[in-house]
């Protein structure tokens, strides 16, 4: 399940030279020895560029074969995200196989939230490309992604069921056989999901009056509405009491057992220590370490 190698620029470059004849290379590439002229860039970023060129497509072809073969949930290739002069992601690459629970760790400002937002399709990459659930265009797989962030993404003035009913409408959860049926199916699904996060579906209190733990759980319920294949959770345990956090962790493991892929950004990895498949450390916009065990000590 864990099949990650660091990107190997030399291998990619030799692949490129084999696949595309030199005469067809773009002009600058023909005369350019990337390794010598931009050693730092080359090693960090591998091959990156927003614009298509024959070299790029050759690499893409090689990679897409790899993607379909290994059934990866997310394949990242040299992700760079810059906000003006500040670089949130400075070359994130890696493959994340489907059906795993990945915990992303790192200090504040390491780029974890940015990475999650890019996978969710909420942010645009400055450079690099990413494929989510086998698709370059994240919009096409939006129905299969669940996203939960630190803000609750819920309307404070509405109750839990009311919120979910609205969002269920956006996901077209129930096929429109007849109006009565679809409303009933939606209702059932909402109740099911609220019960799964151990909340009371009949609670009429507006979400704004919930405790933090309840709000986080309701937010998770919203993320689960469409039964997503890929779940992206940004700090689900923050400000949640220990017992609720443990319950949530158990729930996440259950979801993983149902063949879902989960990415969890958290500052409390101990909660998922025995449950997660892999821990991913990020620092200053890059992935610095990946390991199935939490405590081999960071480098």
């Amino acid at each position: 399940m864990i099949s990650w190698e660091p990107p190997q620029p030399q291998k990619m470059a030799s692949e490129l030279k084999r696949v595309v004849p030199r005469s067809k290379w773009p002009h600058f590439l023909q005369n350019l020895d990337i390794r010598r002229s931009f050693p730092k860039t080359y090693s960090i970023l591998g091959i990156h560029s927003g614009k298509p060129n024959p070299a790029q497509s050759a690499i893409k072809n090689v990679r897409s074969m790899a993607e379909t073969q290994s059934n990866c949930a997310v394949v990242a290739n040299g992700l760079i995200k810059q906000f003006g002069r500040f670089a949130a992601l400075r070359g994130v690459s890696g493959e994340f196989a489907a059906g795993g629970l990945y915990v992303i760790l790192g200090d504040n400002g390491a780029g974890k939230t940015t990475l999650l937002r890019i996978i969710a399709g909420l942010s645009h990459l400055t450079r690099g490309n990413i494929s989510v659930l086998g698709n370059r265009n994240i919009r096409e797989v939006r129905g299969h992604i669940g996203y939960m962030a630190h803000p609750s993404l819920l309307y404070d003035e509405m109750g839990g069921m009311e919120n979910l009913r609205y969002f269920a409408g956006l996901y077209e959860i129930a096929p429109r056989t007849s109006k009565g049926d679809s409303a009933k199916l939606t209702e059932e699904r909402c109740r099911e999901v609220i019960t799964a996060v151990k909340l009371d579906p009949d609670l009429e209190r507006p979400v704004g009056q919930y405790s933090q733990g309840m709000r986080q759980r309701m937010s998770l319920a919203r993320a689960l509405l469409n039964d997503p294949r890929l779940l992206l959770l940004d700090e689900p345990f923050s400000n949640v009491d220990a017992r609720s956090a443990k319950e949530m962790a158990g729930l996440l493991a259950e979801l993983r057992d149902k063949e879902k892929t989960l990415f969890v950004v958290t500052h409390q990895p101990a909660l998922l220590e025995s449950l997660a498949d892999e821990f991913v450390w990020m620092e200053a916009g890059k992935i610095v370490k990946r390991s199935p065990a939490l405590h081999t000590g960071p480098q």
Partner: protein
Amino acid sequence: MKRGFTILAIVTGLLLSFALYEALIAAPTERTMGDVQRIFYYHVPSAWTAFLLFLINFIASLVFLIRRDSKSDIVALVSAEVGVVFCTVVLVTGPIWARPVWGIWWTWDLRLTLTLVLWLIYVSYLMLRRFSTSSQTAKLAAVLAVFGALDIPLVYFSIWFFRTQHPSPVIGNGGSLDPRMAHVLLINWAAFSCLAWLVCWTRFRLEVLKREVEEAQALESLLEGPR
């Protein structure tokens, strides 16, 4: 490229000098307004140049929305900026003309009002560019430019109809134009177009350089990491 620029600069310089001579000295003096009328040779070509530049802005914005390349974005920005400048010239020369002739500073005639509205629209475009915090400013600005361009015919018709119902003094000679004057007008327009082209070209190069510097700085921060 550089040679073309130099040639354009020389041609512009020559044309402007010639146009200046024609406008201020050689052109016939107008019967009713006298020498004040000569400002017409600056007022009208500036307006035409501004309209042309705004048209270029519209086309560049459309191209950007379709192709998403940064060159069209820069062309859109540059043409809007220079267009606003020429628009300002129209709005300033208008009152300067109106005052001695009719004793009023401003008149809501078709051309002047249209120019004012255009000026407002494109200044708001430039303000959006400046105030945007998104990383996709170019897209938002292009969207606004499309809105602005589609608005212009509506503005024209609304003011035109309003003016036919409530006529007011027309800046410019509403009627026919002496062929000698038309000749001078066209020379001035050619000179202004070359000037506009020159300024746009310079601004374009400046913007390209600016973006390259920003890219280099961003790349630097990318490689060195946070401080």
